[in-house]
């Protein structure tokens, strides 16, 4: 027993010494005037390695860039803890929602003055819709957009040929999409169309593209500072068509497990899939068995699409804003041109960096992806994919309570109005 207690004592002392070891980690100015700029991404180990490699090209004798590791899973939890501890790195990957919320709380450095003007890194050097979306109501810009997602329809060319349907192309209509889904289903596909973007809590926003394309009103007048949500006749018409598609089995219902949808599409099990351009990067390595293409979202009379961007934010307490901005500029303008050729995941928001992305797609023979992404970026009518407000979870709860049941036909279409009335109450209470 004594030996056991002695061993435990030794272990405790050794562990205690290890446990109390001081931490490094934080960035800042060193005694010799040199600056370390810290950076945190949500990328995979392979992409981080490519970013590290690209950052070796950044030369400034007074600035060292240090990437801080974080697990990809639960990035938002990690961000919340770092925010609370005031330990956010100088540059960290952020979504539009995080940027809007943190900026409004004064947690981020406002880059608006540095991005003003028409210099080589001014607001005009970015895709115009992104800068508009990254600006808060009071004109602050707490982060710089980096990559843009474009949504469209992935289609299995052989399945379309077998069903005798023309493959989707720019300008195709919602009715053509519903018709194709029905025919593909009749030809043996479990579902002709899998569109989680329509069935999930983002559904009301995604379906806004139908209303906007038909000249109607979107679900929300603004995803950043909404004043109200609306359901008009064109919107209800779009929902009724989705409901009919789900009822007939042509469209996958809410609750359909999408965790392996990319693999199922690549294996020819899903003939038509509403998703983003990012599959292209995976398809370069995973090589699908099928011939496939990527078409823009369907339209009623004019094109309308979804807006979704991610970016890089800086906390308000960054110790050297000049150095941080220099690294930020290098990341957005140069790093992507070195990383995207090997993994063309999304188009850069910085216009001059886009050639590297489109060049990689062309080189890989992904011409339909390149064309659809270009079409998406040039579509003037857009709607954000979801609310970016702090109270978004409250509206999501309401959407969860109504939207799936409406799509499944368990609740009448008239409940769309009930849902929007309740969301409008949430907006009113939080405004």
């Amino acid at each position, binding site marked *: 027993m004594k030996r056991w207690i002695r061993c*435990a004592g030794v272990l405790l002392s050794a562990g205690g010494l290890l446990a109390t070891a001081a931490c490094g980690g934080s960035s800042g100015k060193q005694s010799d005037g040199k600056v370390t700029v810290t950076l945190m991404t949500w990328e995979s180990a392979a992409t981080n390695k490519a970013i590290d490699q690209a950052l070796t090209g950044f030369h400034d004798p007074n600035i060292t860039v240090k990437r801080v590791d974080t697990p990809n899973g639960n990035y938002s939890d990690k961000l919340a803890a770092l925010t609370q501890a005031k330990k956010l790195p100088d540059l960290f990957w952020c979504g539009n929602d995080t940027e809007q919320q943190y900026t409004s709380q004064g947690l981020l450095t406002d880059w608006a003055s540095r991005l003003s003007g028409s210099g080589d890194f001014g607001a005009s050097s970015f895709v115009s819709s992104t800068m508009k979306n990254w600006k808060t109501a009071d004109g602050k810009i707490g982060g710089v957009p980096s990559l843009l997602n474009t949504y469209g329809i992935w289609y299995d060319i052989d399945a379309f040929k077998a069903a005798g349907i023309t493959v989707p192309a720019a300008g195709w209509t919602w009715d053509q999409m519903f018709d194709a889904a029905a025919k593909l289903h009749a030809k043996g596909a479990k579902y002709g169309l899998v569109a989680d973007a329509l069935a999930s809590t983002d559904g009301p926003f995604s379906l806004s593209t139908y209303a906007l394309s038909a000249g109607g009103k979107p679900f929300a007048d603004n995803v950043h500072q909404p004043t109200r949500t609306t359901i008009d006749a064109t919107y209800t018409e779009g929902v009724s068509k989705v409901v009919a598609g789900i009822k007939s089995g042509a469209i996958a219902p809410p609750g359909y497990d999408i965790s392996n949808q990319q693999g199922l599409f690549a294996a020819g099990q899903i003939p038509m899939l509403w998703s983003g351009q990012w599959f292209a990067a995976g398809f370069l*390595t995973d090589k699908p068995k099928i011939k496939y293409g990527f078409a823009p979202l369907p339209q009623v009379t004019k094109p309308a699409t979804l807006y979704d961007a991610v970016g890089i934010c800086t906390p308000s307490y960054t110790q050297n804003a000049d150095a941080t901005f220099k690294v930020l500029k290098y990341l957005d303008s140069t790093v992507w041109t070195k990383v995207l050729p090997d993994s063309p995941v999304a188009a850069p928001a910085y216009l001059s960096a886009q050639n590297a992305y489109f060049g990689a797609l062309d080189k890989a023979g992904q011409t339909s992806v390149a064309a659809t992404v270009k079409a998406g970026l040039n579509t003037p009518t857009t709607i954000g994919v979801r609310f970016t407000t702090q109270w978004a979870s409250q509206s999501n709860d309401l959407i969860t309570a109504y939207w799936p049941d409406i799509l499944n036909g368990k609740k009448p279409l008239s409940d769309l109005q009930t849902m929007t009335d309740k969301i409008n109450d949430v907006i009113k209470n939080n405004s």
Partner: protein
Amino acid sequence: MILPILWMLTVALKGPSAVFEVPPKLLPHEFHFKNFIDGPKVIHFPRLLLNSLVITGLSVIGGVMTSMMAGYALARLRFPGRKVWFYVFVGSMLLPPVVGIIPLFQLFKDIGWYDTWLPLIVPAFLGGNPLFIFLARQYFLSIPHSIDEAAKVDGAGHARIFFSVMLPITKPAWITMSILAFQMSWNDYLNPLIYLYSSQKWPLSVGMASFVTQFAGQTPDWNLYMATNLLYMLPPLIVFFVAQRYFIQGLSALGTVNQR
């Protein structure tokens, strides 16, 4: 239980594209044993393994030792408020652990414990697991008081009775607790995620999450993930199989409590 582990093993031996085959095949066409070397390399496995062993080892020692002491006191000592303390411990089991995350985080940050292992270890030494205190108390209640009385007659104090008499005869109880504490600490993901900033201090649970990504365009290397996961699972499995006899004894003994 066997099928998921078999499935993990088969994925761990597959190539990156074979993982996504539809319909899935149980046996790989080619065996990629190299995954068991490449996977651990991605997350600096040996360093994180050492971190996990230190954090888990200290948590187990602290949690089990203090729970046994508290359980002994609640079951064998007569002092005012004994029942109140017991109800406080048992009542705290009803609180979801997530409730304490924000205040505890704020506390540990304010006392300078952020980015150290202390928030993961010290609470265990302060009786951080009420379930173990409850289990220990129940086990001590099943031991006849005549044993303490005999020891007292021989001149033993409480410390002597606890260490020399009670610990040997409650072996199944504290080994059961040790297994449970090992499993809890080994698999704890949220606490190290929020308290540890430096990746050199991560335990394996956090390192494992580096394989999985929730973001667009990034297909996780499932084969490397599963290969590393099998290695990650080994220590708890070994601990369980080595001590399973006591584990069963410990659990079954709780059903024969002799309340006094």
